[in-house]
Each structure stands twice: as structure tokens, then as C-alpha cells.
């Protein structure tokens, strides 16, 4: 088979795919390049449950047929985009029934609260980078002061801007980020513990060096 790992991982988009790949590589010393599938498609449908259509479901159905475990890692989202942790869980269960597919679920940021991958990323910037987040806050407060109706960069924009300061624009884009770059990211932060604990039921942790 293309990969002997007994697991399929389904994520929302390419950016999520990059984070999960690097995260698993770091904590479990395993490459999951051939085991991760994103459901975004070319048109980049952003309405979450619309990511499940006959096309994406057909991929999950096909991968489900093998003797592998399915994991789905999505954003919990919030009221701001008609989502939220409980709501997403409910919707995903309906998707399972509708398409006859099965998967274990983890919802960013921590599998219990509303939020997104970007909320987790914000927390795992290194200590040296955290002050740049304050600069960003000053920037958005300044815009609000000028006129509250002006839109401000969203969470993705914030993460990009902070990362760009350290690694440049090309390397700050979601799909190009190197999450193994310890200058920018701290993958040992307490904030990642829920994700690590979830994944450790499928992967063996790499030995800690002393």
C-alpha cells in the first residue's frame, strides 16, 4: 500500500494539513504525508459543513473501506460563523449518518472550546514572539479608534503578520510554514496537550531525550 500507517486523517484545508503533518512529525516521529487528506477542494468552500459534499464524502468512504482508523480534525468555530464546539460535533455526527462514514473527531483549538486552529497557533508562538502579538493588538486598536467600522485583519491575517515578521512573507503562508522552526513555534506549549493526548491514542510518542 502507499503507506503502511493504519490511519487516515481528514482536515479542512491545506494549512491544517501542514500543521498536523509537522505536529505529528515532531511529537511522534512519523511522516503522515500520504495519510492526510483535506476536504477544501479547488473552490475553497469555507462553510464548514458544506465541505462535506458527494465529492469529499466519496474520498472518506473510499478510505474508510480499508482497515484503517479515520480521524477528522476541524475547527470548532463559534457563533461568529454559525459554529461552535457543540454545534460542530452535532453536525459531524449527522454527516457520519448521512454518508455512512465513521471517524474520531478533534476540534481546534482544544477539543472542548469554541475557536479555530489560529487560536491554538496564537498560543504557541514562542515567548520571544509573543511581544509582536502585542504590536498587532496595538495596530487593530488603532484602526478601531479611527473608525470602528473599518475592518481589521482576521485571525488568519494576524497569524500571518506575526509570522511574517520573523520568517518573511513567503514562509509565513499557511501551507508553507515550518512548524518545526523553534524560533517561531513552541510545540511543547501546554496549549497543545489536548491535541497531543488525542493523537497519542493512534501514534506512539517519541522517547524524550534527557
Amino acid at each position, binding site marked *: 500500500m*502507499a503507506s503502511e500507517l493504519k490511519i487516515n486523517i481528514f482536515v479542512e484545508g491545506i494549512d491544517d494539513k501542514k500543521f498536523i503533518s509537522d505536529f505529528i512529525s515532531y511529537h511522534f516521529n512519523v511522516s503522515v504525508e500520504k495519510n492526510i487528506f*483535506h476536504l477544501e477542494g479547488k473552490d475553497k468552500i469555507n462553510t464548514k459543513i458544506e465541505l462535506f459534499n458527494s*465529492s469529499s464524502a*466519496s*474520498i472518506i468512504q473510499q478510505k474508510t473501506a480499508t482497515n484503517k482508523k479515520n480521524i477528522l480534525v476541524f475547527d470548532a468555530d463559534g457563533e461568529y460563523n454559525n459554529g461552535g464546539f457543540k454545534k460542530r460535533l452535532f453536525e459531524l455526527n449527522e454527516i457520519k449518518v448521512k454518508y455512512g462514514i465513521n471517524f474520531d473527531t478533534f476540534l481546534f483549538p482544544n477539543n472542548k472550546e469554541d475557536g479555530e486552529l489560529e487560536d491554538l497557533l496564537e498560543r504557541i508562538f514562542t515567548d520571544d514572539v509573543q511581544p509582536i502579538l502585542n504590536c498587532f493588538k496595538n495596530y487593530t486598536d488603532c484602526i478601531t479608534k479611527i473608525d470602528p467600522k473599518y475592518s481589521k485583519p482576521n485571525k488568519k491575517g494576524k497569524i500571518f503578520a506575526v509570522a511574517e515578521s520573523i520568517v518573511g512573507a513567503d514562509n509565513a503562508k499557511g501551507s508553507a510554514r515550518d512548524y518545526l522552526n523553534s524560533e517561531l513555534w513552541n510545540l511543547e506549549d501546554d496549549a497543545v496537550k489536548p491535541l497531543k493526548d488525542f493523537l497519542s491514542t493512534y501514534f506512539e510518542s517519541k522517547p524524550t531525550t534527557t
Partner: protein
Amino acid sequence: MGENHLTYFKVENFKRFESFELNDIGQFNLIVGDNNVGKTSVLEALGFDTNVYKMLEKLQLFLFVRGIKFIPDFKKKTKNLLEHYLNDSKKKEIKFSFQIQKHTNENVLLSKCIERNNLTDVERDFLEKNSFESKVNDYSPYQLLNVQYYNNALTSVANSYNYIDLNVVNYSHSYFFFNQPIELVNNLDLFSSYFTDLEQRKKLIEQLKFFAPNIEHIERNEIDGIQLIQVNEKNSTEFKPLAYYGDGINKLFTILMLIRKNNGERLMIDEIDAGIHYSRFKDFWRTIFKSAIANDVQIFATTHNIECLKYFKEVLEEEEKDENGFSMKDSQREARCFSLVQQPDNSVKAFTKNFEQFQWAIDSENEIRD
């Protein structure tokens, strides 16, 4: 889609398949999957034939492309290679079930039983004398292929008439295997049958120019006492055998001839990408699609090659209309991709993707080959 094209197919007790089916078959069907999952076996099963001799030709071909020249010797009680090849020693009857386009609306599983009108007197006589008759009737939903029956039929005919030359492997024209000898390239009968006039040859030249831009003429000529299909190039009066050219052009030429030969029927092509440079895939696919549409041929093709899949998709996205107002995009509804996946119980299941699902998977770079 042609009225004789398959829309549903199922085979039981054939090689590794206890039961295997293809649902929602289109006119252009890709079959993908891991090594040894059974892609080629699916192609072989799709060649089921009610005619005893044609079926034996196909079975011989299946073994021949594997380097086994099987010549049945009915005088010797030797191990039967065919029986072992087809379903090992299970001794279960191989069954085919299918629907074809013209009867899809009636939702009937047709039995394409041995068509009695097509039988010779010897075959009809054999049927009447054997219990095989009782397994087949006009309303049977199955076409039964009993290998022993074919052996017996041939024995009977050979003993009676002694005219079958089984020392020659006759290549079935329903197939193109990637490692098949290119003798078909010099199949003069095929060439003469389907490219008889200048207009047809001119069209053929245009189709072959994708691989050899300077080709101007194609003829059946003699060289050193041997009749061959030969071509000449621009600014040259010299003809040389087409077989001297590369794999790509020979393969395309052979497939175009086989498409003409299988007018209204189906053609199975194993590893369609083999020998084709990625930069030629679009022209290759477009040529095959247009020829298959013009000749009402249903295509089943296996491939491992992701670029082959991508260009299959890209050609079917082309919107440019031809002189008849037809665009490749109009054929999207006839495109399918069947991903063969081995299940935990070792059975094989085919996951059907229509064009939209296939397009999505390719665009999102999600692996669909296994």
C-alpha cells in the same frame, strides 16, 4: 453512450474475485488501485464473451502476455492452466451479470446467453447433448462461463472437424495490454479494413502527428518481401515501417485501429499511460476520446500514473467546440473513475467517482489511486 455499452457489471468466482461489481459505468472508465488489487483481472472479466472461440482467444491472450503460450492439448491429461488461472482450484462456476444501456430503463438484468443464432451446428449439437443446457435458459439472469465446457466444446469440434489450429495464438481485438507484442501494428487486415480510403488515412495521419509531426503518408507496402504498414515523412520519398517508430505512436496507432474494430462495443486497455510521455497525454486522451465517440466504443483503462489522471480530467474540461458544436466538456457525464480497494476480508470493492467527484479529488490533490 452506445446502446450496447455496459452500465452495470458483476463477476463471481473469477480469479481473486468471489464477487466484484462495477456500478454506474460510463463510456470512459478509468480503473485505478494498488498493485495486485486486481485491475487487470477486472479488464479480463470485462471481456466475457458468449462465443466459445472468441473467449478462448481471450483466455489465451491473458496467459500469453504473462509469458505462457497456452495451447490446449486435449490428448494429454495435463494440468489445466486455464482452470487454474481463472479460479484456481475452487471449481466454482464463473458468473457474469450485467446491464447494457438499451435496457437500463427497463431495469432488467439481461442474460446475454449463448446466442443460439450465432452457434455453429457443432456447438448447438454439443449444447443439446450436455447438461450445460439446463443451466442456461432464456430468462436466466446470468451468463455462465464454465471453463470445462469450453474445453469440451473444443475437444468436440476438434475431434469432429479437425480444423482448429490452436498452435497459433490469436490476439483478441478487445484488448490492448502494455506488454503485448506489437504485432498488431502490422495487422494488415485491420489496417486495410478500417483505413481503406484516402480520407480515412488523412484523418489517421492527423491523429498520429501528435507523436510524429512530419508524417505525411501511411500505406501498406512491401519491403524485403514482407508486407508492412509503413509511413513516409515530409520531404522524403522513402517509406519506413511504422514499427520502427517509438512506443507512443505505435501504441496510439494500435488503439485507434482497435477502436475502429470494436465499433459499438468495448475496448479494454491495460496501463494506458505506459510508453506515453507526460507532455503528450492531453493529445493522446483527446484523440482516443474523439475516436471512441465517433465509433461508439466504451473504453476501460487501467493506470497508475497521476499525470495520466490529471490530463484525463483536463481534456474533459475543454470547452472549445468543434465544427459539429461538440466540446470535450460534453463528455464529462460519461467519465468515471473506479478506485479498487482491498477490504479487510481480502475482497475487493470498486468505489465509483463520477466526473465531478473525480475532478474534485484531483484538484484537491487527494490520493484516489488507493
